[in-house]
């Protein structure tokens, strides 16, 4: 009988595979001792930021980063992660598998408890995002109903076992980021407008039929409060990432699924009672940002929205009062953004850079973790 080496873990051929992969990993520069890589000053010991990442050895993890940029801890993941939902009061977090995600891992931000893994039902997969209810008792996750192709919001009990206790519609296809507004009662879902078939990985289904929207949903009942779509001429702009300010204004960053030459502007806003308006800079930016916003974050003071365009190596700031693009940071493959107090941001890149941007003329502080590739999202914890 022909022996199949390529799926076995104890065969000679697999040793060769390990040799191949090991050789590739060894080519990367050796990673410095993490503890030595924090910014100058007293060493911080409490996690301030979290991000999924690929490590220098090619494996995946969620990284906990101190306020000085030092990586405090790494929790291994079985596959690539995406976003991290934070529950500030009890200092818990959940990292989600990347679309199509089949796992989530709950962990204590201070490492006081063992991490717990849980999964969506067999006919659902995660889209990589979620958030905790205001009281921390529930976790809401954006999911895909594999059978119907419709988007759903899964509801999980956080009190023990991460049991899935229900779901309601996302009111669209391909829900990506979902956030809770400051009222604690309203959820906003970025329905990207297209799905994928988990059997074939990440390939998009029926882009021509896209109908993206921002759905405002009552968290208590799951009923739809408002749904804001896009004009037909730009319905290939997939609404993906969201950030809200205290006024209930929700900003989004989109990803253009059509030809780059046809890319519209990528950043817009809406609120419960106001439909989507796309901000139009004096000089069009959609094409130069390569039609792709990878994440967005609102400054702590609510004044600025930062939107990352990793394909262009740029992060732009929009003034939420004037709707104008007012600042830009160049950071190669920069995608993760988190507020770091006031109107400042910290950002991370696929090239292992963590960059602290400051107000005024003060130069940014930068750290580099050789071989580490930070994933799309960075979260303040």
């Amino acid at each position: 009988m022909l022996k199949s080496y390529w799926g076995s873990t104890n065969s000679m051929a697999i040793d060769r595979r390990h040799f191949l992969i090991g050789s590739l990993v060894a080519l990367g520069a050796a990673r410095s001792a993490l503890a030595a890589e924090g910014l100058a000053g007293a060493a911080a010991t409490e996690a301030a930021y979290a991000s999924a990442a690929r490590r220098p050895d090619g494996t995946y993890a969620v990284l906990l980063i101190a306020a000085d940029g030092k990586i405090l801890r790494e929790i291994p993941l079985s596959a690539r992660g995406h976003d991290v939902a934070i529950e500030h009061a009890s200092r818990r977090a959940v990292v989600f598998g990347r679309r199509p995600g089949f796992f989530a891992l709950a962990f204590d931000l201070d490492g006081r408890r063992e991490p717990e893994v849980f999964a969506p039902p067999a006919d659902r997969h995660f889209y990589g995002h979620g958030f905790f209810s205001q009281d921390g008792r529930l976790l809401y996750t954006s999911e895909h109903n594999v059978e119907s192709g419709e988007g759903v919001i899964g509801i999980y009990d956080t009190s023990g076992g991460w049991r899935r206790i229900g779901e309601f519609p996302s009111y669209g296809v391909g829900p990506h980021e979902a956030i809770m507004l400051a009222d604690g009662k309203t959820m906003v879902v970025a329905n990207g407008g297209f799905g994928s078939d988990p059997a074939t990985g990440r390939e998009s289904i029926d882009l021509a039929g896209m109908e993206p929207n921002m759905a405002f949903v009552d968290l208590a009942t799951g009923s739809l409060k408002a749904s804001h779509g896009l004009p037909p001429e730009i319905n290939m702009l997939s609404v993906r990432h969201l950030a809200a300010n205290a006024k209930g204004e929700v900003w989004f960053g989109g990803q253009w699924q059509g030809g780059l030459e046809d890319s519209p502007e990528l950043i817009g806003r809406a609120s419960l009672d106001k439909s989507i308006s796309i901000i139009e800079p004096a000089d069009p930016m959609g094409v130069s940002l390569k039609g792709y916003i990878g994440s967005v974050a609102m400054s702590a003071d609510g004044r600025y929205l930062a939107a990352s365009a990793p394909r262009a190596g740029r992060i732009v700031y929009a003034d939420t009062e004037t709707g104008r693009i007012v600042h830009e940071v160049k950071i190669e493959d920069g995608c993760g953004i988190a507020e770091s107090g006031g109107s400042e941001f910290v950002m991370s890149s696929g090239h292992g850079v963590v960059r602290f941007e400051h107000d005024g003329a003060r130069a940014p502080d930068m750290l580099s973790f050789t071989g580490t590739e930070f994933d799309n999202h960075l979260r303040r914890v």
Partner: protein
Amino acid sequence: MISNRLLRMSLAAAMGAFVVGLAAAPAAALPIRKSHATMVLDAVDQFIVPHIQTLTQKTARMNAALQAVCKEGADDATRRAAVASFADTVRAWGSLDFIRFGPVSRNHRLERVLFWPDPRATTSRQLNGLLAARKPELLEAGALAKQSVAVQGLTALEVLLFDEKAPLGASTEETARYRCALASAIAANIDTVASEISTGWTGEDSFRLKILTPGSDNALYQDASETVRDVVKAIATGLDLCKNRFVTPELTALDETPPKRVRLPFERAELTGEFLTSSLVALRDLFETTGLSAYVPADKPWMTDFLPKAWKSLLADAARLDKLRATERGSEAHLHALRKMRFDLSGIRLIIVKELAPNAEIVLGFNELDGD
């Protein structure tokens, strides 16, 4: 309009630094290390444009063959010619399906040629609706282009052309005639889309010139580091497509108890392996055209040996996949072929993305390569 000659002259100047840098090395050790601009020029002029020309030839023949089938008195030879022309087009498209930048990305052209994946059988469902409605205006020139993309391309034509119970052109009954006319309209639509892609690449204000002349006055590309990134990303995308469409779904389905069936592209036409093989051959050719293998790191000579063996192994496994699936699905031999393909596809991709591209100073970001 910038001519090929001018382009080649400017690229030759850009290559100067490479030649000077290599002059002191022993002749036998000299790899031909192309600049970014040369990689793109060769990829466009030696791979993309010729393959698009082939595609348009095949779609034109398929269009004519389908029209012939629908004429009165069509015989089996005419039907066989239509089937053969469909296979030719599938092979031609397999060579291009992973080139997803440029004209194909506009006006839904990618999905209008091939609507896939189709997990909920949208194509069959919508086709049935059209056949039931039998609207004559749908058969007018250009009318199909306004319909759902699911009924415009090869996926839809396959449904109509490979139905043993209702062979095209075999009946003069009204339903059968409409069915044949719809198939013919689909073939015409595919031909039109292929022509649009061709014109987009080489016509007036062509994408070819945009990608070959990056600069501050070019809205799409600032420099050759951006254009070469699109070319290398296309190879990575193609390798992913081969794995995610043909290998992983089978392995996942076979791992179920009991094993599940899985839908693969062009199964009905028995062209699954042909489509996969044409993609793999094209990916290998594009890889070789870029000259990326010259960027194998000096301390990793084993990659120079691994890459051609992996391509060869992939093609050998792809060639027998259809038969294995038909005659001994789930057998050790079938699983072995699938796992070996997964290994080779992943290995080649890993080497390109993590080794050759960085060594050639082509930056493929972790978040920008396959974003979400």
